[in-house]
């Protein structure tokens, strides 16, 4: 009788021991999985950010080669006359350019030679003295982050047969 009682208690203790070990193991496993997926989630977010920047870099390179803006003879060059006339093309195809450019602000800035500091949104007529021309602006009301990508480019003035140095600036909003 006593031996049976002793045996049952021993078995119960061993069961409790096994259950405790399993619980501790389960706790460690859940803990490990939680931190692993936190790390993976952060990694995915960083990759998404990198992909977005890659896309912005590709877009900034392709802006200077858009037929609506590019120079006739030079590569990676923007024709100022085309740039000024881009307003009407943009307005006629607003849906297309909104889909193409999405939540971004795209501007062309003249760096050299330096001219007066002002921004034009196609309100000035040619010849113009604009340090910055905004070709697309779609900023969401609530954005979490903003990144800026820029690339130097040539700005051709065909009427003066001269080239200025500028840059294409893209502000990406997420």
């Amino acid at each position: 009788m006593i031996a049976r009682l002793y045996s049952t208690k021993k078995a119960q203790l061993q069961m409790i021991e096994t259950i405790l070990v399993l619980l501790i193991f389960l706790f460690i496993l859940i803990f490990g999985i939680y931190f692993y997926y936190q790390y993976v989630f952060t990694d995915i977010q960083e990759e998404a950010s990198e992909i977005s920047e890659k896309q912005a870099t590709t877009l900034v390179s392709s802006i200077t080669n858009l037929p609506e803006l590019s120079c006739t003879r030079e590569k990676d060059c923007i024709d100022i006359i085309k740039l000024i006339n881009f307003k009407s093309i943009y307005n006629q195809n607003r849906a297309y350019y909104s889909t193409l450019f999405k939540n971004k602000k795209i501007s062309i800035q003249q760096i050299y030679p330096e001219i007066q500091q002002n921004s034009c949104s196609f309100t000035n007529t040619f010849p113009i003295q604009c340090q910055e021309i905004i070709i697309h602006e779609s900023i969401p009301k609530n954005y979490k982050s903003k990144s800026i990508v820029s690339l130097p480019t040539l700005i051709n003035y065909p009427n003066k047969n001269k080239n200025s140095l500028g840059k294409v600036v893209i502000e990406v909003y997420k």
Partner: protein
Amino acid sequence: MNKKAQIEIIGLMLIVLLLTFLAVVFLRLTLKPSESIAEARQNIIASATIDSILKTSYQEKTFESLIYDCYQATNCNILEQEINNIMEKLMPKKQFYMIFSSNDQIFLEIGKNCLGIQANNPYIINSIPIKISLKLC
């Protein structure tokens, strides 16, 4: 006896699973690809900067002519001054190092050598092979 053996086997299986999980995490951490996108972007920017500067007009000439004049050792001051001016406006507060060379002989250096991605663009200016290197620090 059987139950004890079964429990032992379950224990062993759990340990194997845990070790496999740790091995997967370890491989995930060690096999992560190195960050080269930023370097590629820097290279594109440096290369585009050189290309654009070369064709930019300076008074009645282009920077290409100024580079040729400098190569001929007639005048490098204007080129150096204007490039410093351009780089200050294009990339404010950013250090750069620019080298102009022909047949591996450097004829002009602008800025201080530093750590960074370097773009090397070769050109033919008035039949002279000239290499322009730009390092963005």
